[in-house]
């Protein structure tokens, strides 16, 4: 019987700039159903953080409730974590970020956690452009509570028991665009080549970065007639471009010297390189992205890739002009500047 994963790893594993292998980015053994798309997304998060050489203790994982929200236990076991209440991950993330702006905030949610109970929190965290990565593991159902249709289930999609969903779906990526999100992407759990660079770019992005990842629920929503099943998604997927994330220190000139494709320079000198950009798509143009998404939907296609980015995004701290330093690094003197300072402030109101 094995509920235990061996401690042995491939002896030739590469190490990153910190001297770590992927092992240092792993978490506990997953208890999700075998074949759940969520596990693949966890694998991609591990891979992305390893490749970016982020120190595990510099990351905070936050989630709500659901199979998807359980996943933070299964990756980044050396990072901080907060498994919050159903649909309340954004407010916990906001509080944490306000207190310590120096960490990387990685929010993980589900379609139920975001598009139903958490919708109110979701829209506000976008509106505020909180500096975080927000990943929705979208399986079109409430996996944890045995597969009820969620608000992202497509109209006409068939459940395992044969019932047909009569309602319009909520398009989370479309909604994020509409609400002014500064980074919007869509992907598929079965496409690591695309998802890993998207996660890296999202981590690098200085603002709210949203990735809606179609992630089949093998147990309750992988049946014929479901539009979130592995087979259906594979047949209807349409990538906007192939994507590569090129970290700041890398010489882009060597790899992309031919000048093909589109290069997006990020705030820290990193680049997102898009190759084979589909017609009518322009990652800087919010309207075009909304159009492309709508068109794809009309054609029963799932448009994936980086849909929109605002490279010079200004995050919440900037907007509200909060302290440049993390609150937890402020000492007695800064927090309690004394009677004289108070008198000065009071003077200002006279």
């Amino acid at each position, binding site marked *: 019987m094995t509920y235990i994963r061996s401690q042995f790893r491939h002896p030739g594993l590469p190490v990153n700039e910190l001297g770590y292998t992927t092992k240092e980015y792993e978490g506990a053994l997953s208890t999700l159903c075998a*074949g759940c798309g969520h596990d693949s997304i966890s694998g991609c998060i591990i891979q992305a953080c390893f490749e970016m050489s982020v120190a595990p203790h510099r990351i905070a994982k936050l989630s709500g409730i659901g199979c998807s929200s359980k996943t933070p236990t299964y990756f980044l076991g050396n990072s901080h974590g907060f498994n919050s209440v159903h649909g309340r991950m954004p407010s916990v993330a906001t509080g944490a970020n306000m207190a310590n702006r120096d960490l990387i905030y990685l929010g993980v949610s589900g379609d139920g956690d975001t598009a139903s109970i958490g919708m109110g929190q979701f829209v506000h965290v976008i509106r505020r452009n909180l500096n975080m990565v927000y990943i929705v593991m979208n399986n079109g159902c409430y996996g944890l509570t045995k597969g009820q249709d969620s608000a992202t289930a497509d109209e006409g999609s068939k459940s395992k028991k044969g019932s047909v969903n009569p309602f319009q779906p909520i398009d989370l990526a479309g909604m994020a665009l509409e609400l002014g999100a500064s980074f919007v992407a869509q992907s598929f759990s079965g496409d690591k080549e695309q998802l890993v660079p998207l996660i890296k770019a999202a981590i690098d992005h200085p603002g709210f970065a949203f990735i809606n990842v179609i992630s089949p629920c093998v147990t309750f929503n992988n049946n014929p007639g479901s539009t979130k099943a*592995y087979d259906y998604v594979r047949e209807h997927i349409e990538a906007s471009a192939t994507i590569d994330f090129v970290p700041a220190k890398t010489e882009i000139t060597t790899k992309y010297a031919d000048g093909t494709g589109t290069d997006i320079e990020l705030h820290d000198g990193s680049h997102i390189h898009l190759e084979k950009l589909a017609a009518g798509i322009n990652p800087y143009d919010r309207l075009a992205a909304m159009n492309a998404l709508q068109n794809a939907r009309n054609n029963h296609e799932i448009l994936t890739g980086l849909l929109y980015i605002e490279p010079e995004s200004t995050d919440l701290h900037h907007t509200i002009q909060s302290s440049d330093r993390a609150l937890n690094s402020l000492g007695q003197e800064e927090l309690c500047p004394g009677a004289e300072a108070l008198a000065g402030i009071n003077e200002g109101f006279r």
Partner: protein
Amino acid sequence: MKPTDDKNPEYFHKVVDCQYACPAHTPVPEYIRLIAEGKYTEAYMINWESNVFPGVLGRTCDRPCEPACRRGRIEEEPVAICRLKRVAADNKDDVKSLMPQLPFEGNGKRIALIGGGPASLTVARDLAPLGYEIHLYDEQEAGGGMMRSQIPSFRLPIDVLNEEVNYVLDMGIHTQFKTYVSSLKEILDKEYDAVFVGTGAPRGRDLIIPGRQEAAENIHIGVNWLASVAFEHTHKIGKKVIVLGGGNTAMDCCRTSRRLGGEQVKVVVRSPFAEMKASPWEKEDAVHEDIQILDNHVPKVFVVENGKLKGMTFEKVHAVFNDKGKRSLIPTGEPEVFIEADDVLVAIGLENTFPWIEKETGVDFGEWGMPIVDAKTFQSSNKKVFFGGDAAFGPKNVITAVAHGHQAAISIDLYCREKDLTERPSPFTNLVSQKMGIHEWIYESEVENDHRYLVPHAAKSVTLSDRKMEVELGFDVETALKEARRCLNCDVETVFYKDKCIECDACVFICPTQCITFTTNGEEEDLRTRLRAPSLNLKQDLYVSDTLPTQRVMVKDEDVCLHCGLCAERCPTSAWDMQQFLYKVTKAG
């Protein structure tokens, strides 16, 4: 790459590294599991079928399986395969009733075996139950060949040897001990249906340098001297002993000397320490017994004073390698070294010699005076005469002699039944799913983290004063269980059913050692650069599926698979299954 043909038993055979490396292809993981279950008798019988001398080999085998063991690529040390074999032999119940029982119905054919070492005994064991009448000739007073005359009792107690030699001889073998065969022609004239030559490599090489003749009384050829000790003709040696040579014979000579009165025993060898032929563990054991090993010393002169050996002089050298990696030993120019000695043992190699095989027998000889023998059938240029063991291709070891014996027995049987010798019987193979439940397997799939356990030794003070006292005490059953659990069960194969796979990647992410990749196909060289972990061990195969719906293929690098079964547990569709693969070399008959 073409999809792997996993229906071809040779594919999974190769994955079982230890078994594949064993010349007799003993089903290692199968017997290790039995040991873990406390089924020592069954474990012994699996060994006995494959290698005839489990008790002997569990102590003395050259263990080519261990450097091949997958565990050695995952952590520091391989599983102690050899010493676990001994545990089966030490703890077994009655095994004789499980062996072929006399009387065997005769088939009217008579076979002569010349030499009574492991090669001949294996032929005897395989052919006797088929009804062959076996006549075994050996010049020694008992069977076992060099296992008796050369391997010292402190490594191999005589009782262990006798027991296993007798299991064979008790099968109605007609033995003619103390009979030196001086003419093959005479044997052929006795109208045997076939003759097997298993006479080993009986002659120790001499060292002809100045002083050799004058000091002859105190210079001994290592193998002759060991035999003389084994047969109780020699009981002591001088206080100061030089052993020349760096192989296993030298190690046995120096350690035996320590037990016969040698106090200052020095092994002097031409090559650098690291390149000595002796197994690392034998060097360790020698050093532990206060034997000094001096490397890079080339013998020059036996120094004689008043007609008596005083010692030897040596020239110091160092090894230089040319572009092709060929080594030469270049003098360092330092003054010659004199080492005192009362006795010198020369252990610088063995040679084959066949003065008793006449030209007119039709057995042709090639280079180096070696017989021309077919490497598969072991048949010589005289169709009736077969060779095996050290006599066939020069000095090797017991397990190789046994493997030759099995193959020669198959050939002799085919020959006597007038069948084509090149049509070898295919191996017996079997592949059985281990699945019992969602997280349950018939085999112990959990991978233990323990490092290799050491076999306890008897105290040096005791072993050095009694040449027959065995040094190694063997594992007790508790330690054996722990060591057995280190085995990764490489015979429980990961079998992939492409048509079931939905490409969910669950197996990719769960695999602790990143063995599995889904990618587009390519040539092997290219594919190896695109796997999830570096794929540098070219001796290990890639398991490649046919094209999947996404136009990719599944590629599994077998190199460091832990056989932990997690891929199969994770797979939602049972596209992976863990299946126990049994591979048995088919015997004669």
